[in-house]
Structure formats: C-alpha cells, structure tokens
C-alpha cells in the first residue's frame, strides 16, 4: 500500500464523513446503493463512518459523473481508458467518466463485453484514494491501478486493510475478516433493516 505525498488524511475531528451525489446526474436509488456498499467496505475496517446527505455544497465527499473536460485539469477520455479519479484528503472530490458502460448490478464476470465496467469495483478503489491511499503494486489489492475488463473486485485485501488502518486505526469491531461486522453504530434504513450484518 502507498500514501499520497505528505500522507494526507481526514483529521480526527472529521471521521464521520458525509457524501453527496451531483444533483444533475439524477442517480437512482439503485445506483446510490452501490456507493453505499462501497463505503461500507472501508467503514467495516476503520473507525470512519459515511452518511449520505442531500446537501451537495456541504458534503465532505462529492460524487459525480462527468464527460471529457470537466474543469479539474484531468479530462476523461470516453469509453475505457481512464475510468475515474479521486482526490486525496480532504478534497473529497470523486469523479467518474460518464461515457463508460457502468454496470450497476448483475454478474459482470459472465460477460466478455470489453466495455462493461463494474461500478462498485471502481467505487471501492476511488474511495481508497479519497481516504488517503495511493496505488498498490499488489495485484489482488483494491488499490491496484488497472482493472481487467469484465472483472469485479470489491473486497478489501490485506494490503488495503493494513494501509487504511495505518492511517485511521482499526474499527473496534473489526475481527480480522473483511466480512462486515454489525456494530452498535450501525445505521438502520428507513424500513428498519440493518444495512449490513455480521
């Protein structure tokens, strides 16, 4: 695992982070749920928490789909090539290439279509950047820079976990497995179901 130069991280008083989606993207709840799941991968192993907010202007983390030149000096290049990028703490900017064929659900691994990109795979990776991790040379790690078409990789590997825990420490309820563990701090959804359980 690696860090950005200077090892930037979210300060101690900003460990309960909020995230918001670019209103203009008008994402469905199904798409938003993919990001929720991706954030949970990281919150399961750290003391960090992530909560969606409707207030885009005040959110710690902002998520948006953009095409081509979108004003940050890092233009997207259409289908495939560069898929997404995210900024180091405490910028919170997470941009995805709107021209990709993002697969929201279903088994992307059963397809030989080269342009299909699993959304959650990329989301988990970019959240790693948002939290302060750089790229890793460990091929199985989430923070490995490339993705092979038609693959899905959403579970943190030891390399990712060691890296993020060296920045923020461990979730008190983390038991050494990447399987999410229920905590007293679990947020209940509106229908009373617990979003993730041991």
């Amino acid at each position: 695992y690696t860090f950005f130069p200077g090892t930037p991280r979210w300060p101690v008083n900003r460990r309960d982070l909020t995230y918001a989606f670019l209103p203009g993207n008008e994402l469905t709840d199904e798409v938003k749920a993919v990001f929720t799941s991706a954030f949970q991968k990281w919150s399961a192993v750290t003391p960090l928490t992530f909560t969606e907010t409707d207030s885009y202007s005040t959110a710690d983390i902002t998520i948006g789909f953009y095409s081509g030149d979108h004003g940050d000096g890092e233009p997207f290049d259409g289908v495939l090539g560069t898929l997404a990028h995210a900024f180091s703490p405490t910028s919170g900017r997470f941009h995805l290439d709107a021209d990709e064929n993002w697969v929201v659900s279903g088994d992307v691994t059963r397809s030989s279509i080269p342009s299909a990109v699993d959304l959650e795979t990329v989301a988990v990776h970019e959240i790693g950047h948002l939290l302060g991790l750089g790229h890793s040379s460990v091929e199985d790690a989430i923070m490995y820079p490339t993705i092979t078409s038609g693959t899905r990789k959403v579970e943190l590997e030891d390399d990712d976990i060691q890296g993020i825990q060296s920045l923020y420490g461990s979730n008190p309820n983390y038991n050494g497995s990447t399987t999410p563990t229920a905590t007293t701090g679990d947020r209940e959804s509106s229908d009373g179901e617990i979003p993730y359980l041991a």
Partner: protein
Amino acid sequence: TLLPNITAIPPWQQHPNATSFAAAWDAFTKFAGCHSGETRDGLSKLKQYFSNFGYIPNSPSSNFTDDFDDELEKALKAYQQNFNLNVTGQLDDRTLEQIVRPRCGNADIVNGTSSMNSSKSSSFQTVGHFHTTGH
C-alpha cells in the same frame, strides 16, 4: 451510461472485437517490440501516457518526440517494476497488455515520488525524484 445489468449494454458495443469504442491506448499495441534507439510515429503519445501517470516528470513545456529515448526507457522500467512485469525496458507484449488496460486516472507516481514497487529499488531513481518510504 448507467446500466442496470450486463444485458443492457448497447448492441453496437456488445461484440468483443468491436473497435468503435476502442480507447486511444489500444493504438499503443503497434509499438510491440519497440526498443531504445528507435523512432516510431506516435511514441510521443505513449510518453504523454507515462507523463499523465507520473512516470515522466511533468513539465509545462513538455514537447515529446517520437524517439524511444532514455527518458522513455526509464519510465518504462519504472512502470514494469510497479506492475510486477519483467523489467526489460522494452515494449514487450505483457507490458503493452498492461498499458492498454482500463485504469484509474490517478497517477502512480505523484510529484516524482513513488511508493509502489519502483521505490524499492535504487535502479530507477532517475525517474523524477523518488524517495523511499518505509512501511
């Protein structure tokens, strides 16, 4: 394009060999076997690729040539080291296969500092200004 599932991909993009959506990087496969000292049309774009991901120090006045020069060879070696490839300094098939893969837009080497594999060897310290980081 947000697709609810894999079957929702537009038909014109479903053929595995379709080229209409090929990323610009696919053109790099024509450089297979290219090595130091050669000049090939389009190598400047490969240098720009390596510059984008931090393997060639960024300069506002970057005006890359189509020459396979020392700068490209050093970048290539650092890239091969980072991606656990054989460090040949040449554009072999495995290296090109890795280069054209879809990837995150964040640089592997930021501000001349790499903490990926290439920082673990002093052989490639001429690419930017590497600093060893102990973990």
